[in-house]
């Protein structure tokens, strides 16, 4: 059981470049999330999705876009990369919106913008 798979694991971007972080889950979860983790900080929510075709902004959405065309995939798009987007990005999914539901995380993507 693969769980939540993120690609790539590492990436270096130049300022102004664009890229897509891929996220796939094989648990048939409706709810998916993108977080960023900055050094010395907890995870902050960028975007989330409650099902195919439905996405919404989290706490720090500026500079990012998402789409959810299938239940399995939830890619995160960075347009015009900036040094402030240097971070570790985590994709997560959960089965239900019940508050006690566990979120399953991918292994993260370490992105450096230079």
């Amino acid at each position: 059981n693969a769980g939540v798979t993120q690609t790539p694991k590492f990436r270096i971007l130049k300022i102004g470049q664009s890229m897509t972080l891929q996220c796939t889950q094989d648990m048939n979860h409706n709810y998916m999330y993108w977080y960023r983790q900055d050094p010395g900080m907890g995870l902050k929510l960028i975007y989330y999705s409650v099902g195919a075709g439905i996405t919404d902004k989290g706490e720090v959405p500026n500079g990012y876009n998402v789409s959810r065309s299938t239940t399995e995939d939830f890619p995160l798009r960075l347009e015009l990369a900036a040094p402030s987007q240097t971070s570790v990005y985590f994709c997560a999914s959960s089965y239900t919106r019940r508050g006690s539901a566990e979120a399953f995380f991918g292994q993260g993507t370490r992105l450096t913008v230079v």
Partner: protein
Amino acid sequence: AQTVTQSQPEMSVQEAETVTLSCTYDTSESDYYLFWYKQPPSRQMILVIRQEAYKQQNATENRFSVNFQKAAKSFSLKISDSQLGDAAMYFCAYRSPTYNNNDMRFGAGTRLTVKP
């Protein structure tokens, strides 16, 4: 918005000893959910334990237990019989039960070192 504070950036413990990691949170809600996640060097976030605020009994998972003090808004994690594999970053997280807010708020984390 709810905030989660972990006041110990780093902690260390001797193998086989017990260590307690602190977490406090700020909320005006009466019902909510609390979590401890472990992040080893592999970066994979792994759920350690969770607590529902309406349950007075402290959650326990094998060597891991919590001390949930609702009035004090405190949610500490106790690791007993520490093992080398427990070395990791530990994050405390809060989730609101509000239907339209599915955001999990995380603390800044505590780095735990286990000494052999």
